[in-house]
C-alpha cells in the first residue's frame, strides 16, 4: 500500500494532536477542587462520645435496617472492634489509648470524601458525589463489581453477598432525604452529648479550631479529615493520637482520583497515537519490501528479456 505525502502529513498531524491531548485531560482532573461550596459535613468530637450507641440505633431505624443480634444498649459488643456491615452503616468502637485510664469511643462510617475513591473507581457512576456533600449510591446502576470496596481507603462499603437477586453495596447515605428536608442526619440527632455536629463543612472546621484553641490541653492539634485523602466531609477531633483510636495516619493528602489521573489521562494518547505510529511504521517497512520486490521483478524481467533476445 502506498502512501502519498498528503496522507502522510495528515496522519502525523492527527498523531500530534493525540499527543497533545494528555495535557488537556490533565487539566480536567480538577486538582484544585476543594469540595462543593456550602456542602455539609459532620464533626465528631471523640472526647465527648460515651459509647452509648444511640447513633447506631437511630441509623438502624432511619434506614429500615434489620434488627441486630444484640440490642443497641448491649455494651459487651464493644469488647471487639467491629466494622461497618450490610446491617450496620455505622459502628462505635472502644479503644484503650496508652497513658490514659479511660477508653475512647469512636464512631465509624462512610466519611463522604470530597473526592471519593469509590466514586472514582465506579465505572457505571453508581456512586456520585452530591452537592450536599453526601456520596450517594444508586443501586439500579450498580453492576456488583465491588471496585468501590477495594478503592475505599477506610474499608467502609459492605456488600450483600447473601442476596441472590439484587445485591447492593451498603454504606452510610448521610441521610440525604432527611438533610434535604432540613433535618439532621439520624445519628447526629440522636447523640445525647452532641458529639456529632452536623452543618456546613466550613463552619465545622471553624468550630473545631475554636475548640482546639479554647482547650489546648484537651485536644490533639489536628482535625482529622480536613486534608486526609483530599478532605472528607466527616471530621474528627481527638485527645490522643489518631493512630491509637484506629484511624489511619498514613493516607496522605492526595485525593484518590488524583492518584490514578496520571495513568488514565495517558489512555487517549495511547489510543490515538500508537495505532497511527505503528501503522505508519508498518506501512513504511512494508513499502520498503514492496519496492525491493518490484525492483527484483523488474530485474528478473530484464534478465528474461535479455535471455530471449540472445536466443
Amino acid at each position, binding site marked *: 500500500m502506498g502512501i502519498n505525502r498528503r496522507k502522510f502529513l495528515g496522519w502525523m498531524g492527527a498523531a500530534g494532536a493525540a499527543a497533545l491531548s494528555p495535557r488537556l485531560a490533565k487539566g480536567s482532573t480538577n486538582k484544585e477542587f476543594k469540595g462543593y461550596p456550602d456542602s455539609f459535613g459532620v464533626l465528631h468530637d471523640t472526647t465527648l462520645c460515651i459509647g452509648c450507641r444511640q447513633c447506631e440505633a437511630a441509623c438502624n431505624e432511619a434506614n429500615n435496617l434489620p434488627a441486630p443480634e444484640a440490642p443497641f*444498649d448491649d455494651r459487651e459488643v464493644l469488647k471487639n472492634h467491629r466494622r461497618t456491615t450490610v446491617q450496620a452503616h455505622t459502628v462505635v*468502637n472502644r479503644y484503650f489509648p496508652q497513658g490514659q485510664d479511660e477508653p475512647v469511643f469512636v464512631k465509624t462510617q462512610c466519611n463522604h470524601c470530597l473526592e471519593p475513591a469509590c466514586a472514582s473507581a465506579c465505572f457505571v457512576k453508581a456512586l456520585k458525589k452530591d452537592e450536599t456533600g453526601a456520596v450517594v449510591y444508586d443501586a439500579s446502576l450498580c453492576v456488583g463489581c465491588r471496585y468501590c470496596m477495594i478503592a475505599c481507603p477506610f474499608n467502609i462499603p459492605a456488600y450483600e453477598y447473601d442476596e441472590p437477586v439484587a445485591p447492593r453495596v451498603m454504606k452510610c447515605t448521610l441521610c440525604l432525604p432527611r438533610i434535604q428536608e432540613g433535618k439532621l442526619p439520624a445519628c447526629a440527632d440522636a447523640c*445525647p452529648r*452532641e458529639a456529632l455536629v452536623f452543618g*456546613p463543612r466550613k463552619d465545622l472546621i471553624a468550630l473545631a479550631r*475554636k475548640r482546639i484553641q479554647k482547650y489546648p490541653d484537651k485536644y490533639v492539634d489536628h482535625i482529622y479529615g480536613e486534608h486526609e485523602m483530599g478532605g472528607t466531609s466527616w471530621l474528627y477531633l481527638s485527645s490522643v493520637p489518631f493512630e491509637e483510636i484506629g484511624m489511619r495516619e498514613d493516607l496522605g493528602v492526595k485525593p484518590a482520583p488524583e492518584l490514578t489521573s496520571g495513568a488514565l489521562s495517558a489512555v487517549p494518547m495511547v489510543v490515538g497515537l500508537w495505532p497511527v505510529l505503528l501503522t505508519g511504521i508498518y506501512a513504511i517497512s512494508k513499502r520498503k519490501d514492496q519496492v525491493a520486490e518490484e525492483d527484483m521483478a523488474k530485474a528478473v524481467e530484464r534478465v528474461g528479456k535479455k535471455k530471449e533476445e540472445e536466443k
Partner: protein
Amino acid sequence: MSERASSIAVTSVVFAALTLFWTLGGGTRSGRAAPLETRSDIVFMENVAAHGEQQMPTVAFSHDRHTQSLGEAECTTCHLEEKGALVPEFKRTKAQPADMDLYHENCVACHVTTRAGDKPSGPIASQCRSCHDRRPTATVLHESMAFDRSLHYLHERSPLIKQDADNTNCSACHHGYENGKKTEFSVRGKEASCRYCHEASGTDKAPSMADVSHESCVGCHQTFVGTGEDFGPVTCEGCHGLDAKSGIKTVETPPRLDRGQPDHALVTRGRRDLAVAGMDASTQKISMDSVPFDHKLHESTSESCLSCHHKSLESCQTCHTEKGDDRGGNVRLSEAMHKRKSDRSCIGCHNQRQKAPECAGCHAQRPDTAFADNACNTCHKPAAGTGMPAPSHRTQFNGEVPKTVVIDSLEEKYNPSILPHAKIIKALEEKIEESPMAKAFHKDEFSLCQGCHHNAPSSERPQKCGSCHATLDLAGDGRPGLKGAFHGQCITCHDKMNMASIPATDCSRCHKEKQLENEVQ
C-alpha cells in the same frame, strides 16, 4: 508440565504473592481493644540498640520477677560492685559497652542452669521471641518516688541509721562535694534536696537521681533484709508501684523541718528591685499589692520543700527578679508566681489541686483562661490606704437554694428529670469546708453557683440554661445546644468526680424512659 501450564502457574503465583503483599501491607486499623497491663518494674533494654542496627524488638525485662524468683540471692548475682557501690548495669561496669552477647550468654546460661535443676525458668536460646516480643502485653508505668516530709521524718528519727556526734543522722544521706569528691559530712543548716545536684540524667559532676537513689537508698534498705527490723522497700514495686504508698508508713503531721525559714514572707513586686536600683519606693508607682505569703501554712500543705524550692532553698525573689535574671533562667517574678502550666508556681500548683475529684466536677469544665473578676484579691492584699478597690458585688448568698429543679425543657423519649439541687450544693459545700485552700478561694459564696450557672452575672435567682443554650451555635461561638449543655454539664461532672455509680450510658438513672402508648406491657 507443558509450557503453557507452567507459565500459568508462574503467573498465578506472582499474582497471589502481589495480592497478599498489598492486602497485608495495606491499611489495617490499629488501636487496642483491651487495656495493656502495667507494671512498675519493667526495664526496657535499649542500650544495645545504640550500637548499631536493632534487629529484634526491645526486650522488656521484669526486674521484680527476677529478684523474687532468685529469693535470698544477693544483688551481686547480676550486678557488679564498683568502689563499694552496685553498678545498675547488668554484669558490667559503666565503662564497658553494652553487648548483645553479654546478655545472651549470661541470661540464657542462668535460665538453662535453673531448668536443669527442675525449676521453672525463663526462655532459653531457641526461644528468641519469648524475650524479644513484638507485641508485648505489658508496659511500664512507674509512679515517681515522692520523698515527702513524712518519709524524711521517719528517716530522721529512725534508730537504724547511724548517728553523728551531735545526735542527728543528717550526714548519713546529706553530703557535700569538694575537690571532685563527695565529702563525708554535711554542713548543718545547709542541707538541701538531693535533686539540686542529682538531676534526672547523670552529669560528670553528679550521677543521676535514679542511680544514686537506687545505690544509696535501696542499698541501705538491702542491708536490713532478714534482720527482722522495719525497713524500706527493696523491690521496684515497693517504691514505684501504683499502690506503693499503702505499703509505706506515713506520719500524718510530721514536725516542721527546721532550716531557719520564716513563718510569713512578703512577696513584693519591685520594692527590692527599686531599693537595689537606689530608687525611692514611696515615690514609685507599684500597681499590684504585696502578697503576704503564709510560708508556715504552705509548708504543711506541700509534699516537701522541693515542691516550690526547685533549685535552691533561698527566697524565690533571689533569682526571679522583676525584670528577670540569668540565675532565674530569665523567668520574671510575675511569671514565676502566676504561670498556669508550671507545677511550682503559685497559680500552677493551685490549678493542679483543682484536678482532684472533689473540685474537678466544675473546674475541669472551665476553659484554661477563665479568671473570676476578683481572683487577684485572694492573694494580693492592699496595705492600708493604698491598693486595689474591694470587689463591688456581694459575696454572701442570702437566697433560698431550691430543693429540686424539674428539667422538662426537652422531652421526647424520656420523662422530665428531677435534679436534686440542694443535695448537690450541700455536698459541694461540705467538700469546700474540708479544704482550707478551697475556702480561701470560695469566700465569695456565689462562686460555687458559677460552676453550673456560668458565663452570667451571679445572682440569687440565676437564669435558666435555656436562656442561652438553644441549638448548637455553629455560626457563633460554638456553645452547645440545650441537650448537649445538659448532658455535657451533668455527665462531665459525674465523670470528673469519679462517680462510677452514675455511668453516662445509664439514661434512665436521671430520666425514666417514657412508656409509648402502643407499647404492650
